[in-house]
């Protein structure tokens, strides 16, 4: 619940370990809110959210922080620390939790920056980065501690086709080589279909469809037809609820 509005109603999502699961759905349906619930930033009014056997909403703060040390989170707007340069942003989780020799720390950070193609931008400040670059730095920061679970909130927004390909390849590689579990929230079905093992379609506070990308592509339900076909008419209204259009424009009086 958010105020008096029910955001999720009987949502049951099973995220398999070591797989890439995508959460898709129309804007404002609560995809980011779902990620925030999974990571314990928001607490549900009822229900369970289990990660690695732990029920997140009931965890005391130290245990929640312990769990978060094993989770990487890519924020929708990157959320880079504006006081620090790119290198220090990526190094931040290491400096806070580990006592590593400076040369070891430097090598780890540069390796991750190389993976996102931004080793040369290590000395830049966040204000000097484009949106796509900031997102890649945030991605490097999210994976700096080789987490067991990575939550990606809109990872493909603002990426050019070259960067998009690299990021997709990286998400897949992390999953294949390290067995990382990934949950990604996105709108771009073409990109999601290239990496996701499983897709959940969220609409109206419920899971309306789920399956592999191929299964959803062939799914005949009106939800999947509308969402993946991009049609205005369907179970998800394009128009925000409003009164009579003609009356709003002042034509109703003239018609009488």
């Amino acid at each position, binding site marked *: 619940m958010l105020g008096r509005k029910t955001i999720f109603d009987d949502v049951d999502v099973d995220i398999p370990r070591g797989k890439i699961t995508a959460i898709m759905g129309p804007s404002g349906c609560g995809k980011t809110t779902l990620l925030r619930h999974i*990571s314990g*930033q928001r607490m549900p009014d009822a229900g369970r959210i289990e990660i690695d056997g732990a029920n997140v909403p009931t965890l005391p703060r130290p245990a929640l*922080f*312990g769990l*978060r*040390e094993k*989770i990487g*989170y890519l*924020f*929708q*707007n990157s*959320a*880079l*620390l*504006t006081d620090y340069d790119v290198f220090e942003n990526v190094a*931040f*989780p290491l400096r*806070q*939790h580990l006592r590593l020799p400076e040369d070891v720390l430097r090598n780890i950070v540069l390796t991750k920056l190389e993976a996102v193609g931004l080793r040369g931008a290590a000395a830049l400040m966040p204000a000097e980065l484009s949106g796509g670059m900031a997102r890649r730095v945030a991605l490097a*920061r999210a994976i700096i501690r080789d987490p067991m679970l990575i939550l990606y909130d809109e990872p493909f927004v603002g990426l050019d086709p070259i960067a998009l390909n690299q990021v997709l390849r990286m998400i897949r590689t992390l999953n294949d080589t390290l067995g990382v579990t990934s949950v990604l929230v996105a709108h771009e079905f073409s990109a999601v279909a290239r990496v996701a093992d499983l897709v959940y379609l969220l609409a109206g506070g419920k899971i309306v469809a789920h399956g592999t990308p191929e299964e959803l592509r062939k799914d005949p339900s009106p939800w999947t037809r509308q969402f993946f076909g991009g049609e205005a008419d369907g179970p998800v209204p394009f128009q925000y609820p409003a009164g009579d259009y003609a009356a709003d424009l002042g034509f109703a009086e003239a018609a009488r």
Partner: protein
Amino acid sequence: MNTRSGPFAGIADALAQIGACGLFGLQVLAALPASLRHWRETVRQIWFTGAMSLVIIMTCGLFVGMVLGLQLYYVLSIFGGTAALGTVVSLSLYRELGPVVTALLFAGRAGTSITAEIGLMRATDQLDAMEMMAVDPVAYVATPRFIAGILAMPLLACVFNALGIFGAHLVGVNWLGLDNGTFWSNMTSSVDVWKDVVNGVWKSAVFGGVVALIAVFQGYTTAPTSEGVAHATTRTVVFSSIVVLAVDFVMTAFLM
């Protein structure tokens, strides 16, 4: 009866703010042990809030001292007591003007910058990003600024007092012709280190803590919009000024 509307709305909101700020203050104090790990951040904040405020504090201290010297010389000359100029100026500065005016300037210079900085961090998800990296934002962001306020304010007040006395000396001795020896000997014989100077330092430390806490709280709880940050910055100056003057009265009553 709904206290959030009608004539009681302002009072209810103010009380709610005081209560929330008090609870936040407890959180800040509880995070003191954890914030010791971030001592570098505390040193950085002392630099930003203290050293970066020096120019305005020194300039204002000099002019306040010069005005005091001019006004008091005129008033004291009516009674033939210009010899007491050094005493009156120094007691006014040490006991009241130094701590209070420095605190008001500190709220305007450092308090607003703390609120705006933390407000921007809130608006750009930087505080949430810290939470997700298992770093307590209260211990990393709020408490170091609170400690910095407590440590920087007494030092700034001492600088203010020194420049104020220098300004009064400039006007009283160098310009209006008061005897140099009389100015200093009357001052040193009537100013008590513990009753006057140290009590002023205590006051400054309390004012520093109060201003820093209000500034951090306003930034931390701001609405994540540009308008929200602007309102929070204004509230920092208004609330800090009122609370500093009120606390000054209470402390003066106890320290007399």
